């Protein structure tokens, strides 16, 4: 077959070949099929997962999460020294770190980068109100002075999404979206052709942190000379490309295509756990769902198990789990979950009666662009109608849904999902400005206490209080956890399945 392939190709295209490809001297390269074109590769201002996946190879943060989702030093040489009652962070920097433009990283670059992050990143803006100053103590030490203790600061500094990415001072001077990409990472951007590929090459002067690799932390080595991130929006094409050996890694594959890998030798499927959780968020600013008893009725009516089965089919790909944080993570708490997976229509009907609900239409927004959300919303519609709700299910494209949810008068509930975040305060619904507008005094007090607490053990207890309020006040309903399907070539070794796939410390055989 190989001879036939070669013969056919040579016969058909030999006459057309115009010299050797310019990349012929590359010893090792892999093609990574992604879900689409990422657009500007600014790791600070853009919070799409795709941008995070790509840019984490180029830009680095002061800290990174290890396999236990705890912050570990990356560009910092050690964890920060926290003094003055949790309001002064002193961050020692590693020496000998070089940017891709050849300049050495110093405290001034870090200060400028952190200031840009506080102004321009949606994550940084969460920390900004707590930060008083960011200053360079000396060439290799940075201090962050807080107005009050803010425990999420360290996880935020370690997060690669909306990242506190360190870049040269000159680049960090503007909060405009980046057009040039100069970081300290093991790879540097060589070429970006929109909708075609992003090519990055090994940074030969990369200075790796010490320590055994663990999660995103520890030593990093660019074993593969060249990485190419190729936008392939069609999921079937990503799978076919893996089976044909054209790609060495493919992300975000539909779970129903998993059987195609059975018996294949070129590629194997990978399950990413934990990955995300689906939820329906209620409008607490206006409309019938502002009444907490109506929201509790919806909570009683829904059947998450049916919704998950409809969405994913195979139980291998989901977990019926009420705890907002998955098992195995520090904030997991199934004991405090009250009211998950009830599917009790009688109780729901009684609660509706108690709330004085008069059959006002509940406008629920959903989008078929995320097929699993759409299927879940169909089951929810049935569940709610059986309990006595009048449901107006509005099926929109995702762009319209994102736009419409900003208008409180336009909806009562919308389906969405949340990818796993290591720090609870990063969960979108914790932000009172996020659509849904969960901003009760009890929640504010509980979240403030959680954010002020710096003791990890006490934070776990505080989080249980916040989760308890999530189930009592029902700002949203967690449907369940789901996993992500990716695929890797059998030629890859050393790859660690994770939510934001990375390819340092990964080898490819020829």
């Amino acid at each position, binding site marked *: 077959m190989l001879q036939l392939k070669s013969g056919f190709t040579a016969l058909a295209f030999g006459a057309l070949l115009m010299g050797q490809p310019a990349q012929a001297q590359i010893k090792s390269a892999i093609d990574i099929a992604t879900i689409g074109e990422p657009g500007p590769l600014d790791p600070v201002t853009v919070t799409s997962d795709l941008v995070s996946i790509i840019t984490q190879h180029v830009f680095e943060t002061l800290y990174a999460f290890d396999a236990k989702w705890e912050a570990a030093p990356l560009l910092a040489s050690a964890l920060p020294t926290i003094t003055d009652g949790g309001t002064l962070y002193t961050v020692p920097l590693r020496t000998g770190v070089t940017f891709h433009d050849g300049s050495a990283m110093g405290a001034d670059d870090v200060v400028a980068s952190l200031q840009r992050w506080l102004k321009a990143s949606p994550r940084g803006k969460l920390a900004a109100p707590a930060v008083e100053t960011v200053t360079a103590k000396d060439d290799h030490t940075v201090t962050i002075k807080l107005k009050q203790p803010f425990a999420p600061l360290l996880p935020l500094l370690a997060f690669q999404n909306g990242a506190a990415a360190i870049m040269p001072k000159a680049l960090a001077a503007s909060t405009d979206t980046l057009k040039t990409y100069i970081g300290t990472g093991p790879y540097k951007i060589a070429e970006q052709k929109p909708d075609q590929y992003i090519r990055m090459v090994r940074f030969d002067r990369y200075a790796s942190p010490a320590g055994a690799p663990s999660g995103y932390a520890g030593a990093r080595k660019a074993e593969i000379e060249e990485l*190419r991130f190729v936008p392939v929006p069609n999921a079937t094409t990503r799978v076919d490309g893996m089976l044909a050996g054209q790609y060495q890694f493919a992300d975000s594959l539909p779970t129903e295509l998993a059987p195609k890998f059975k018996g294949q030798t070129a590629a194997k499927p990978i399950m990413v756990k934990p990955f995300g959780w689906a939820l329906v968020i209620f409008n607490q600013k206006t409309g019938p769902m502002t009444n907490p008893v109506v929201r509790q009725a919806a909570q009683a009516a829904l059947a998450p198990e049916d919704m998950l089965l409809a969405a994913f089919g195979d139980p291998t790909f989901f977990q019926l789990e009420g705890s907002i944080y998955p098992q195995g993570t520090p904030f997991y708490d199934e004991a405090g979950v009250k009211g998950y997976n009830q599917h009790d229509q009688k109780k729901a009907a009684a609660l509706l009666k108690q709330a004085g609900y008069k059959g006002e239409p509940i406008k629920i927004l959903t989008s078929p662009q995320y097929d699993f959300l759409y299927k879940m919303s169909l089951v929810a519609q049935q569940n709610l109608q059986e309990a006595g709700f009048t449901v107006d299910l509005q099926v929109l494209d*995702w*762009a319209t849904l994102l736009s419409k949810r900003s208008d409180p008068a336009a909806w009562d509930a919308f389906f969405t999902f949340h990818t796993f975040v290591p720090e609870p305060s990063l969960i979108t619904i914790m932000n009172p400005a996020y659509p849904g507008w969960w901003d009760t005094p009890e929640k504010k007090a509980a979240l403030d206490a959680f954010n002020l607490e710096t003791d990890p053990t006490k934070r776990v207890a505080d989080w249980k209080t916040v989760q308890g309020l999530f189930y009592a006040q029902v700002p949203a309903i967690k449907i369940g956890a789901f996993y992500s399907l990716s695929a890797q070539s059998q030629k890859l070794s050393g790859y660690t399945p994770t939510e934001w796939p990375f390819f340092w410390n990964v080898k490819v055989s020829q």
Partner: protein
Amino acid sequence: MTAYLSRRFAGMVVVMLMVAAIVFVIARVVPGDPAAVMLGSNATPADVAALRTQLGLDQPLPVQFVLYIRDILSFNLGNSIFLNRPVVDAMLDRAELTSWLTGLSVAIAVLIGVPVGVLAAVRRGTLLDQAVTAVSMLAASLPSFWVGLTLIEYLAVRLGWFPVAGYGNPGAGLGERLHHLILPAVALGLPNSALIIRFTRTSMLDVLHEDYVRTARAKGLGPWAVIIKHAFRNALIPVLTVIGLTIATLIGGAIVTETVFGLPGVGNLIVSAVLRRDYPVIQGALLIISGLYVLINMAVDLLYAVVDPRVRY
């Protein structure tokens, strides 16, 4: 001819301005917001509003329209919101692929469609004619995305003769790029060839019964000389129209096929722009495509005069 061309160009300017206005209105009438898409699902309404201001999307629509028309009149199609680069550059990047794909697809459609259509007409009523009619009906009914997926499954995944998707690796030569385009060109060319077969056959049947064809035969000309020199040339006008329309449609982007084969062409650019509500790209791309559509139709009209000396402008 000069007067005719002047009239056509003047008409073209009017058409383009109308297209510009319609495209602007359609892009804005569709709900959705580029700022919300760019910032993603984690953004708050305040974040979205701030980006809208930065992008100038918070200005009243009439103001945006006047700025847009002013830019068009100075040949400036603006910058892509998402790609952060001029729309013209984004279009030019994709023009090479779309041109090659259009050229190859049309070549496949014409090379199959015209000879088979002529043959079916000449052998009218025979088993061959019936088979051609049936197969062309079937081919015309096949959606190109299904043809594409089937070709990928058998010729790319199982046999490995062609790449599954994309437009070649960085630094790929012309040969590698064309290799990537063969399957999509076949997927697009086959249904279009069926259309050309049917038009060619019908048009040929019409002229084969004309008096001048009988006269040519009576003069003692060989059968294929009559068919090619006398019948086919006169049957060509409707076929040319179909070919022109096919080219114009494909230049606008073979949207589904480009998506299935992961090709960074014009169609892919437009679909992505619509999903992202990237107004400048939607407006600019549709304007350019409309212009090309008008130009191709004009070129086809001019070709009529070349093919048929009776046509005068």
